[in-house]
């Protein structure tokens, strides 16, 4: 057990038992799984993706590439970083992608065959036979953890929030920026990814205003959280910066007990990016061995969790930061073998720190090998004086620092390479993004705090003149060693594997191979070697890849450039993104006043247009669809049926120019429509194709009521409103949607007049009430508008009533029709009735290619009108001519032959002039009225082929049919005009 007796921010009174790779261990409240593993001397935490080399912890944060685990005890979640899992009682986790265990993994054979697996080897082989054969094995080896088996029971929430200033990151610079911004009285929101605020101050013994930094953090954060204009979210990751300063963030531990995670849409006018920086590894043979760790990570395990990675450490660096850690190692009782510094001359300040801790410094040193497979035994290095091997049990290395410029880059920012800090740092301003501190390449604490004050001060100066509020002073800090770095790349042709991407096993040799094969753009190198495409998305490795490529090509790092930073900054659960709306909420289920009644009365429901649910048919016990449809159709044809037409779109058009507008919208004339009458209108799209049809009534001199198809209601409203507001702005018409205000119940069938006649009413129903008239009045004391409109081809009265009285009137009609066995009718039946009548449906026969003449609706097209939407395109169709698909009827020779919608049409055997695809069936059914199969179809040159034979070719069956007029029942429409 290497847990220090005291120190660390853990609760030693609360031990926690946990299981890792089948073995039981013990940690404390406040540990992460990673820190508990370090404290229990567990070195191997996983296996690498390609070579399956044993891997240990490299970092102490979310950028960890090696310690990916399957969290069996909490939803069996795959690919979690051990560094980010707070330890819980009875936590159980396993390393991913190793079998039978992390210690002994059969696939480690790959590292023996490594020479056969250079970068991109799979493009050059596996070509004999089909790839499916090889991919079956490769897919088993690929993938890390396994996808959870059970349904995700988590509840999620998605919220929208607006702030004047959003501050991402509550490290020292973030806290200072929050202090200054809060004083201005603006709305401030602060997000921080860690469990508690403070950033790197949680891990390093710094002084602020002469006291321990942690006191400064807890006092300042406490004050800020109490302020009314500050919203503070801990354990919340800002994952992406999108257009117009929209930042998406995921809150992992919401206060509401029923929520697993909450997704935030934050619209801010200014975004201060204080996300800090992460340490970068050095490149040397064996830099992936368990026990080789980043220097800052080792310090964090010691400081924060009192967990000690080893007894005897060797430090390897190209920059100044590890020199400040010597005291931490010393006080933890760790012997520092020596500091190997790649640089020829570390600064005097750095050397004096080493002297104070009596640590030997070897300059111009290069590690050439690490001894030990599943743990470090020793290190071999070279410097001017030759090669030496020293014993140590863990190695801490630091290759510099990578500013986390992800959010700045998402915002559209172009980073630039800064030679002094050997890092890509933010360039000019991008949107409202203001990077500060480590994220801005400012690694010193003092400078970061000063930068925070200055930037926060300027955020609102422009809008409020000079700063009219008091600005909290930048806190004082003790002096620190100036950050110095000298990037020194390993010489070419290095022996042994030196890794740049730990998870995807990408070595310096792979980078050299890619450049050698002419993959020279950084994007090509990334895709060919898969460097930076692993789960950590190259957070720590990419800058090294850029450095190696620039060395291979002999170009500056700034011209090599970075690959694109894509959201999310850290992986986000799909539950958080889309789990808030489940089941019935995914798209609205729109209802009419009769929907509940339909369901209670046994309707089989179906999806209509525009998210409406409507009855398909009303099966009685023992009936299948065909039986119910036959019964319902017979009722409409012979006695009385009733159906709910409320989903149809209903728009009120008011104003003196409404007649002129309708003339331009419909193919036929409407300005001459008398008040009290309706007219069937056909609407085209500008390209002359069928768009929608329906009846429009003239209710008053300047007031019309238009009805249109359920699915077309939205597009028709947009079409008319667009024309009124962007093209014909001179027309005096207002368009008002009243679809849900009216319920429409259609009483149809020969006995419709008798059924309605039974009701106490002031509306005369005698034949003077002609087809397409409407009359206002009352039925059983309820105000209604009754119109003679028929979609079934039978005598039909559409009773329109205000929503508030709809269900009451519906029940009255059902009661009145009981003695005539009034039958509720579903859409499948009304579909059959429509086919029998040959009524054209823009959605079926239109099929986006049919014009009115193709559909045999020339009778409704008034080409004498000066203009209407689609007319110019009809003139083009007429002029250019050529073969077109026409709407026809089809009568199979075998009257009982089943025909499926969408069946293709082929020429009959004997016709020699035609071959191949001739068209398709748009709507087919067995007609209970005609006791035979009938169909409507689109057929090439159909209007000139009546009487010809065609083959209807369906998937299961095909038959021969005769082409006819597309109307099978009461073609002249006498019944509906009775």
């Amino acid at each position, binding site marked *: 057990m290497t847990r220090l007796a005291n120190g660390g921010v853990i609760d030693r009174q609360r031990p926690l038992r946990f299981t890792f790779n089948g073995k039981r261990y013990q940690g404390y409240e406040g540990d992460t799984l990673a820190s508990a593993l370090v404290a229990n001397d567990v070195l191997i935490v996983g296996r690498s993706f390609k070579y399956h080399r044993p891997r240990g912890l490299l970092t102490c944060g979310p950028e960890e590439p090696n310690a990916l685990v399957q969290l069996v005890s909490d939803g069996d979640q795959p690919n979690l970083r051990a560094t980010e899992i707070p330890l819980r009682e009875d936590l159980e986790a396993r390393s991913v992608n190793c079998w039978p265990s992390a210690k002994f993994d059969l696939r480690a054979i790959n590292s023996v065959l490594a020479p056969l697996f250079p970068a991109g080897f799979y493009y050059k082989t596996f070509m004999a036979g089909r790839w499916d054969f090889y991919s079956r094995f490769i897919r088993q080896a690929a993938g890390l953890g396994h996808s959870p088996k059970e349904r995700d029971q988590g509840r999620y929430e998605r919220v929208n929030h607006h702030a004047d200033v959003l501050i991402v990151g509550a490290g020292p610079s973030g806290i200072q920026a929050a202090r200054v911004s809060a004083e201005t009285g603006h709305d401030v929101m602060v997000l921080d990814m860690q469990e508690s605020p403070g950033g790197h101050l949680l891990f390093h013994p710094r002084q602020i205003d002469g006291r321990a930094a942690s006191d400064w953090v807890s006092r300042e954060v406490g004050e800020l959280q109490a302020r009314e204009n500050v919203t503070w979210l801990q354990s919340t990751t800002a994952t992406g910066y999108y257009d117009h300063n929209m930042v998406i963030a995921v809150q992992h531990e919401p206060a509401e007990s029923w929520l697993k995670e909450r997704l935030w849409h934050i619209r801010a006018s200014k975004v201060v990016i204080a996300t800090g920086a992460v340490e970068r590894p050095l490149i040397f043979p064996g830099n992936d061995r368990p026990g080789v760790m980043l220097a800052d990570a080792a310090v964090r395990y010691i400081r924060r969790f009192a967990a000690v990675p080893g007894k005897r450490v060797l430090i390897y660096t190209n920059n100044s930061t590890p020199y400040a850690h010597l005291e931490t190692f010393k006080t933890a009782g760790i012997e520092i073998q020596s500091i190997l510094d790649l640089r020829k001359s570390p600064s005097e300040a750095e050397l004096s720190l080493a002297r104070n801790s009596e640590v030997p410094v070897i300059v111009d040193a290069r590690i050439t090998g690490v001894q030990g497979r599943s743990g470090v035994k020793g290190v071999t290095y070279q410097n001017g004086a030759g090669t030496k091997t020293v014993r140590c049990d863990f190695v801490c290395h630091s290759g510099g620092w990578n500013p986390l410029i992800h959010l700045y880059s998402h915002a559209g920012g172009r980073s630039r390479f800064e030679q002094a800090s050997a890092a890509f740092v933010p360039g000019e301003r991008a949107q409202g993004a203001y990077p500060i501190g480590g994220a801005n390449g400012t690694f010193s604490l003092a400078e970061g705090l000063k930068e925070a004050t200055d930037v926060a001060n300027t955020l609102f100066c422009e809008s409020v003149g000079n700063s009219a509020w008091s600005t909290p002073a930048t806190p004082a800090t003790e002096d620190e060693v100036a950050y110095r770095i000298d990037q020194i790349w390993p010489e070419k042709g290095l022996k042994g594997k030196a890794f740049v991407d730990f998870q995807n096993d990408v070595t310096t040799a792979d980078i050299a191979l890619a450049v050698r094969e002419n993959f020279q753009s950084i994007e090509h190198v990334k895709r060919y070697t898969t460097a930076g495409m692993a789960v950590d998305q190259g957070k720590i490795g990419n800058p090294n890849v850029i450095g190696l490529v620039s060395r291979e090509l002999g170009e500056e790092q700034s011209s090599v450039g970075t690959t694109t930073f894509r959201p999310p900054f850290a992986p986000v659960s*799909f539950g958080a993104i889309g789990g808030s709306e489940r089941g019935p909420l995914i798209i609205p289920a729109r209802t009419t006043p009769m929907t509940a009644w339909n369901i209670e009365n046994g309707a089989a429901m179906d999806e209509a247009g525009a998210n409406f649910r409507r009855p398909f048919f009303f099966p009685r016990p023992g009936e299948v669809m065909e039986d119910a449809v036959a019964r319902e159709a017979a009722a409409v044809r012979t006695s009385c049926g009733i159906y709910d037409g409320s989903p149809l779109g209903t728009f009120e058009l008011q104003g003196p120019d409404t007649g002129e507008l309708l003339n331009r919208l419909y193919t036929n004339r409407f300005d001459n429509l008398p008040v009290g009458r309706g007219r069937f209108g056909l609407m085209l799209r500008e390209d002359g194709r069928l768009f929608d049809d329906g009846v429009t009534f003239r209710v008053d001199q300047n007031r019309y009521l238009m009805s249109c198809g359920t699915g077309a209601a939205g597009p028709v409203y947009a*079409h008319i409103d667009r024309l009124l507001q962007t093209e014909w702005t001179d027309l005096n018409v207002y368009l008002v949607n009243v679809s849900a205000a009216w319920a429409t119940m259609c009483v149809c069938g020969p006995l419709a007049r008798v059924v309605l006649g039974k009701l106490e009413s002031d509306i005369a129903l005698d034949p003077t009430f002609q087809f397409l008239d409407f009359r206002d009045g009352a039925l059983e004391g309820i105000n209604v508008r009754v119109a003679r409109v028929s979609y079934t081809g039978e005598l039909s009265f559409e009773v329109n009533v205000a929503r508030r009285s709809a269900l009451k009137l519906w029940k009255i009609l059902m009661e009145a029709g009981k003695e005539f066995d009034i039958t509720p009718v579903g859409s499948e039946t009304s579909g059959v009735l429509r086919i029998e009548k040959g009524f054209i449906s823009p959605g079926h026969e239109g099929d986006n290619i049919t014009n009115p003449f193709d559909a045999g609706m020339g009778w409704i097209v008034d080409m004498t009108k000066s203009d209407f939407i689609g007319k110019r395109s009809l003139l083009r169709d007429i002029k250019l001519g050529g073969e077109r698909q026409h709407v026809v009827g089809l009568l199979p020779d075998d009257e009982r032959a089943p025909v499926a919608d969408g069946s293709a049409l082929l020429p009959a055997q004997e016709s020699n002039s035609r071959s191949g695809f001739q068209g398709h069936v748009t709507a087919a059914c067995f007609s209970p009225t005609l006791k035979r199969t009938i169909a409507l179809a689109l057929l090439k040159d159909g209007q000139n082929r009546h009487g010809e034979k065609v083959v209807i070719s369906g998937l299961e069956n095909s038959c021969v049919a005769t082409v006819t007029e597309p109307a099978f029942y009461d073609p002249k429409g006498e019944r509906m005009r009775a």
Partner: protein
Amino acid sequence: MKRFSIFSIARNALTGHRHWEKMWRSPDPKREYDVVIIGGGGHGLGAAYFLAKEHGITNVAVLEKGWLGGGNTGRNTMTVRSNFLREDSVPFHEMSLDLYHQLSRDLNYNLMVSQRGMITFIQSSAANRIALQMANTMHIYGAEYRMLTLDEVKQKIPIFDPSPNMRLPVRGGVYQPRASMVRHDAVAWGFARAADARGVDIIQNCEVTGIQQEKGAVTGVETTRGLIKAKKVGMAVAGHGSVVASMVGQRLPITTQPLQAWVSEPVKPVLNEIVVIRSYYGTYLMQSDKGEIVVGQGADPYPSYAQRGTFPIIEDATTSMLEVFPSFGRLKLLRHWAGMLDIPYDGSPIISKTNTCGFYIDVAGSGGFKTTPAAANTFAHLIAKDTPHPLAEKLGLERFSSGRLIQEGGVSANR
């Protein structure tokens, strides 16, 4: 071009992989070529390959403003299918599928073409009708497309676990067994290597800034690396069709809109087929060979060249995915990006001559990856012979002036 195989890898392993050849030469541009192709993606490089292989025209340059395959070829969701509605689309996409299945051998470069099959869920009677119409049309052209019962869907996709109160219950599916997935980067690299080996000059970091004409005929292109003369210029620049065509004053019936895609962290195999949940938000997903769940959705709702997408698209697609695969709730989104589609008014590709003699265009349409080899082959035929390939006769610009569109979707009702 030395042949790639396991033996070539073993041979090179002995010498530490130091002797591999360049995949392509990256020469400086000559002053004149017979044909210049603008755009170094799958379509452009493929056209150059077929010009050399099938028409013997090798004095060809492919000009790419960035890096090969950096446009939509590197940004799509790898799906290849031929389930379409119209007789003018099915044969063309079938040709593409056929070519894809033999390209690895022809190019001697493993494109990792896995024939996973595609299942589209049927969630309403309207969806059922359209599926039947597609199936019947495809049946005529020998493309198998079968209806599946709900049980067959469950049997093929074990993790299919629809929530009980699903807004649009899945009634069954329609299945194209031959639909496949192809490693997208390898298409560009494979074509580039094979075209380069036949003498085609592939020139990166060479942006075309203008097209020169004399008396209505193309004479050359101005580029960031100087003037290059040519009597025939082919454009295959998905996402920039309008920009390049405007250099000869040619307006096109397309809008450039982002098409987003994203991947989860890699997990062990759980999903074999490509799955389409059409009735919600047109969401489709599959699992890559590497183990990532790859998800895509319809295009963003407004034109953009920003090569990034808007977040609600991902939210809606994820919501519909979780309705059918609720166990993916704890899987994590790893990375999301966007390609830029030139979406034609009628949703079908445009492979056509133009009003300018010698200037030919290949506009990939919505989802140009599935048509890459067929478009490249027919585009090469058009450039070489100046007449359309039989399968691409209906794909010219004439269909817009005649109004005889190939309505594969993509029509906006209020135009």
